[in-house]
């Protein structure tokens, strides 16, 4: 259940983000290079994208009919997959200290 996972993960992300002293590159990099913070960011991102995929699909099934339905769902899956790949790359690079 991504919805249940997103209660603590979403709260963590919003509170952690708002508690940063600044959002300049050095501060954010230092924050997300910490292994536990990186893991939480990864879990939050994956749970959010998974939840988003499910939610968007339900909305498409309710409002999009005919030939557009299947292709809309496929497009949504593609966008979410690309986003997940980009997320994993970004977190991996941050943990590796910018060398991945």
């Amino acid at each position, binding site marked *: 259940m991504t*919805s*249940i996972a*997103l*209660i603590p993960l*979403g*709260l963590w992300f*919003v*509170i952690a983000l*708002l*508690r940063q002293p*600044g*959002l300049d*590159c*050095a501060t*954010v*990099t230092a924050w*997300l290079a910490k292994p536990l913070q990186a893991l939480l*960011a990864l879990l939050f*991102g994956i749970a*959010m*994208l998974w939840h*988003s995929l499910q*939610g*968007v699909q339900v*909305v498409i099934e309710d409002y999009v009919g005919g030939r557009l339905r299947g292709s809309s769902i496929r497009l949504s899956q593609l*966008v979410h997959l690309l*986003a997940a790949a*980009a*997320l994993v*790359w*970004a*977190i991996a*690079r*941050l943990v590796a200290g*910018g060398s991945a």
Partner: protein
Amino acid sequence: MYTLVLSILHRVSGLFLSACSLLFVAWLVAVAAGPAAYATAGRIFSSLVVRLVLMLALAAFWYHLFAGIRHLAWDMGFGFEKSSARATAVVVLVSAASAFAVTLFLTPAWRWLIGAP
């Protein structure tokens, strides 16, 4: 009647947050790509339009969180009677509005969102 509006708002806020999740990924990619990319992203993210989008995202996040908890309670068989649904609708709205106000005004977010240095 207004419980119906809330239900639609759950979908609307969810779709909006879906779009914003792509902003979240783009932001992480910019951080990971390094200072030059982050500076470029920073110019876009600090534009008035994106600041408004992010402020709305904060509101949508709190609304979707509390409304989502209400949906989870329904799934578990609690609070589906008409009177309870009306009462919890008020709880969701007040909680979301309070949490939004607290996170917006008690953090540097507000200063950043209005473009203060």
